[in-house]
């Protein structure tokens, strides 16, 4: 086995942006959301909300409840852009609720495709830590709620693709070099044979913006949570190795170096940046940082910009609706100040 070798890949933040663990759970005594009337949805939401908030554990005080129908469109879309809920969750917000931990690392969607979707989000590759937290919250809920569970089929879910563990573990990965070399199609098809799937940034049916991909397990029945996570980690480590090798090769190419430096320049000086262009440039910039071309930008700044420049999050943070051009202008300012902020303290230290 390759376990020993994989352990040597310690810091993988040049490729892995974040980790997500999601559990799908349902209440035994209620039909799944597709067969649930609005009244019953409200009831399910209340039951789950109480189970979390009234539980007298340390973590329950840190959750707040959001009734989805009360949010503005920007606030709702921003939740998707920040990866706290799925696009599906905000398409029809009636009868849907969200429990959000104070640091936004845990979100519990109520009445999405299943009654309960517990999601833990952590920066970097933190599969074990994310799993432990999701597991803890699940156990806490299991003590109070009667989950739909079958001895043979495990946790029962609305879509048969999720039965068994009901767990989806995902890694958000930046793969510009593999994308550049045109390998993604081949990788995607070989992954599907291994029970894994690779998709665009916002999951199912989305395009990979900024060369950001989501790698997750597909099979949930007959494989334990731990095995699924180990499997995902092994494959992710292989992808990381491949991406690094591809980067080392392409970064010697003058046209790639030129593209990276141009992106650096535009991001520092542009007055208008559209969302798509900005994602592309940030991805190039990240490639430059990852390859050691410049040291005055750090990966964390780029990672948070990936989210903050998204249109709805931009508008939510500004606190008003913006026309597209206004948005592009504010986006350019935001990027510029974020990139400069990192530099000023460093320069002062030098003096």
């Amino acid at each position, binding site marked *: 086995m390759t376990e020993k070798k994989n352990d040597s890949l310690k810091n993988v933040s040049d490729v892995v942006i974040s980790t997500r663990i999601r559990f799908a759970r349902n209440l035994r005594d*209620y039909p799944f959301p597709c067969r649930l009337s609005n009244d019953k949805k409200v009831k399910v939401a209340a039951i789950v909300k109480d189970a979390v908030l009234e539980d007298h554990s340390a973590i329950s005080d840190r959750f707040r409840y959001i009734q989805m129908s009360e949010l503005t469109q920007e606030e709702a879309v921003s939740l998707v852009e920040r990866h706290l809920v799925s*696009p599906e969750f905000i398409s029809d917000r009636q009868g849907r609720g969200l429990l959000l931990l104070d640091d936004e690392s845990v979100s519990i969607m109520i009445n999405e495709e299943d009654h309960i979707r517990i999601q833990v989000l952590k920066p970097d590759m933190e599969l074990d830590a994310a799993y432990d937290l999701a597991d803890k919250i699940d156990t806490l809920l299991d003590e109070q709620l009667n989950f739909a569970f079958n001895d043979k089929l495990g946790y029962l879910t609305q879509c048969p693709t999720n039965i068994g563990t009901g767990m989806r573990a995902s890694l958000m990965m930046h793969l510009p070099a593999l994308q550049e070399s045109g390998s993604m199609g081949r990788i995607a098809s070989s992954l*599907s044979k291994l029970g894994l799937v690779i998709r665009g940034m916002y999951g199912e049916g989305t395009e990979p913006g900024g060369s950001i991909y989501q790698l997750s397990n597909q099979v949930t029945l*007959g494989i334990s949570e731990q095995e699924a996570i180990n499997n995902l980690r092994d494959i992710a480590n292989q992808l990381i190795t491949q991406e690094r090798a591809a980067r080392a090769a392409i970064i010697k190419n003058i046209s790639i170096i030129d593209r990276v430096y141009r992106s650096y320049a535009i991001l520092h000086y542009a007055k208008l940046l559209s969302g798509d262009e900005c994602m592309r440039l940030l991805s190039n910039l990240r490639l430059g940082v990852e390859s050691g071309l410049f040291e005055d930008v750090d990966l964390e700044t780029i990672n948070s910009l990936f989210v903050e420049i998204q249109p709805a999050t931009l508008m939510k943070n500004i606190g008003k609706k913006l026309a597209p051009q206004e948005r592009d202008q504010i986006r350019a300012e935001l990027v510029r100040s974020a990139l400069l902020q990192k530099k000023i303290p460093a320069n002062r230290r030098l003096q």
Partner: protein
Amino acid sequence: MLCESCEKRQATTHIKTIMNGELKEFNLCPECAKKLGYGSFFNNLGFDFDKLFGSFMDGFTTESNAKRCKQCGSSFEDIAKSGKVGCANCYETFYEELMPSIQRIHGRTSHTGKLAHSAGTEVRLRNEISKYKLQLEKAIKEQEFEKAAELRDRIKELEQNSVHGKE
């Protein structure tokens, strides 16, 4: 409804996506969906509900078509058409009908992993045994033979308690 991309073929795929901060919904035909990178979730798995369940439905008599879940009222046709199971009880009512597709999606048919508190004692035991077996494998691989012997004894003990343990 016609596909919103080619405006020629029948739309069968509904796409929800975030574009420029707004939730957009499209209806696409299978060809355009594939071209635009929205291959159907089920097609990705080599799993085509229409075809799969379609061929099943052919074999069914009107009697089994009429079978409905007692808890939520779903028929198997409802499930096959939407790809959504109605409730927990549907999995029992339509166990036989669902099994072939479940096996096709996952390649396996029985759960291992975390158990809900409502799980039966037999499955609890089975789960514990398979957990120890994994640890045993690891102990052998790492040549920790003392630990391996301990684990082997524990597995044996558990298997004696379990009626179906030696399956």
